[in-house]
């Protein structure tokens, strides 16, 4: 956005942005404030935008009703392993597709990309059967292996390939003259220069794993093994009705690390979006 827009246009622009703010900010605001309200206040009419009374016990109940710390840890370590694994695999695969001339490279890349077109709902049943045979159901392995070798990694490989394609070939030639082999060129030259692309891959992979919902509910069955999105659905009363304030307290705690990461790495988020060519 250029700074030299007219004051009138500026007023209109800020007006539109304020209106747009409502659908973006209101759900978060409602989630956070409702997590502190007694359940009766959540449904009060007129709605209470600012809580009239606070009930902090919701947060302690989050931890009482479920092994929430354990579930938090599950989500965190799975997302970390998936992120690191995807970064390794996608950077190597992306580099190979971009830089190494091997027979049918483009055709193979196209086939790999086709993986993105298959919805996870289609593959979830065969995957379940496969992991069942391997004795991995109700373990975290499917939640680690499927993203690292599945669609999220394909997408990450695509992002990395697009980056490596733009890296000047002369840099690698200079490195060859300097005495580096292919692997060293990758680790010492290409990879350090790919930091922006790697950062966007890391951010998107982490978010994808953190928010993963379908796979955990299919593969996991005990509360000790649950991840956060799945755990959120378990805050129900004896009749299966949601315990709204506790569920929203848990949701607030779940969203917190993502929010913190977003605030810290806002710039990388935006650059990452630009890298992927997606609109979010």
């Amino acid at each position, binding site marked *: 956005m250029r700074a030299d827009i007219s004051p009138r246009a500026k007023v209109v622009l800020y007006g539109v942005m304020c209106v747009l703010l409502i659908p973006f900010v209101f759900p978060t605001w409602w989630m956070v404030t409702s997590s502190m309200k007694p359940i009766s206040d959540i449904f009060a009419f007129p709605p209470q935008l600012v809580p009239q009374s606070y009930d902090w016990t919701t947060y302690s109940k989050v931890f009482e009703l479920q092994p929430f710390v354990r579930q938090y840890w599950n989500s965190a370590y799975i997302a970390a392993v998936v992120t690191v694994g995807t970064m390794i695999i996608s950077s190597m695969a992306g580099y190979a597709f971009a830089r190494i001339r091997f027979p049918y490279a483009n055709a193979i890349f196209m086939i790999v990309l086709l993986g993105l077109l298959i919805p996870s709902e289609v593959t979830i049943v065969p995957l379940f059967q496969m992991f069942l045979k391997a004795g991995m159901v109700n373990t975290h392995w499917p939640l680690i292996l499927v993203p690292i070798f599945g669609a999220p990694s394909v997408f990450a490989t695509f992002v990395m390939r697009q980056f490596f394609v733009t890296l*000047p070939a*002369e*840099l690698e*030639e*200079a*490195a*060859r*003259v*300097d*005495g*580096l082999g292919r692997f*060293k060129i990758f680790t010492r*030259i290409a990879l*350090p*220069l790919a930091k922006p692309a790697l950062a966007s891959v890391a951010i998107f992979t982490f978010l994808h794993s953190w928010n993963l919902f379908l796979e955990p509910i299919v593969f996991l069955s005990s509360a000790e093994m649950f991840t956060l999105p799945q755990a959120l659905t378990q805050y129900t009363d004896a009749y299966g009705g949601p315990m709204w304030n506790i569920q929203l307290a848990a949701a607030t705690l779940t969203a917190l690390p993502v929010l913190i990461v977003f605030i810290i790495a806002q710039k990388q988020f935006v650059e990452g979006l630009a890298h992927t060519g997606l609109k979010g």
Partner: protein
Amino acid sequence: MADVTLSDIRKSYGAVKTVHGVDLEIKDGEFVVLVGPSGCGKSTLLRMIAGLETITGGTLKISGRVVNDLDPKDRDIAMVFQSYALYPHMTVATNMGFSLEHRGTAKTEIAERVNWAAGILGLTDLLDRYPRQLSGGQRQRVAMGRAIVRNPQVFLFDEPLSNLDAKLRVVMRGEIKALHQKLKTTTIYVTHDQVEAMTMADRIVVLNAGRVEQIGAPLDLYDRPANQFVAGFIGSPSMNFLEGKITEAGFQTSGGVLPLPKLINTEMGQIAVYGIRPEHFRFSDHPRHASVPAEIVLIEPMGPETQVTMKFGETQVTGVFRERINGAPGEVIHVSPEVGSIHLFSEDGDTRLN
């Protein structure tokens, strides 16, 4: 330092042949410039010497050792790229010492050699900077520094000055030449700029369409080009060519009869191409012995000399004169070619006739 010998070097990309058998012997310590128009195969040839392109046919020797199938790192060469190819994530010092570091050289020695190279190239104050913080000329120097720290047997330069502005190009040209005189390392330098070739080379190799047209010292090429291509390529403004016939009276063109030099292997009536460099015309404002009339098209005063575009018969020619010429387009002046500086080529331009 080393000799470099190319014997019948060929390069094909599938069915497309780009280099058609180049023979060249480069002596130890020599500065050889490969020059030619875009697509003539000069960069491909250099990249084959570097080991960045495979050699389709022929033999390449460095210091008497056949290196056809060796990796670039095993050829003991250093290359300066057109875009400099400095590693953007490393400082100047790391860039320069990178190859030594990779070869397991001791840190103290790396620092010593980097400081030595930085001293020669005036980079001592810039060692902690990143390439993005440097100007074009400084980057060029770092690229050269990276090449010299290793003390390789051969330096390869691939159009290293083409990204610099005209003024800086002249400065860096001098620096590269001075560096060669200091280090005396065998150097192969690729350029499309014939001025660079003329000013820097011990010997020039003129390439065209993947073939060597002529190899020789700069002034030999200038004074006695072997064919019309070399004659037209070397020299700026380039040589004038006039088509005509060899007769008893002289060289018969559409604009008149021009004096002929001593000829070899020619016959009366033979069609040929008459070449004369712009500075080899003599000017007079009235007819003289052996002068021919030419109509002024354009006068460009340069200060020390005057460049005149003239129409001679059907052909437009350029003359460069020491005199300051006052004339208007359409006026006729009289020019006479210096007989000793005339070049005569066969009709197809492939053979020199004098």
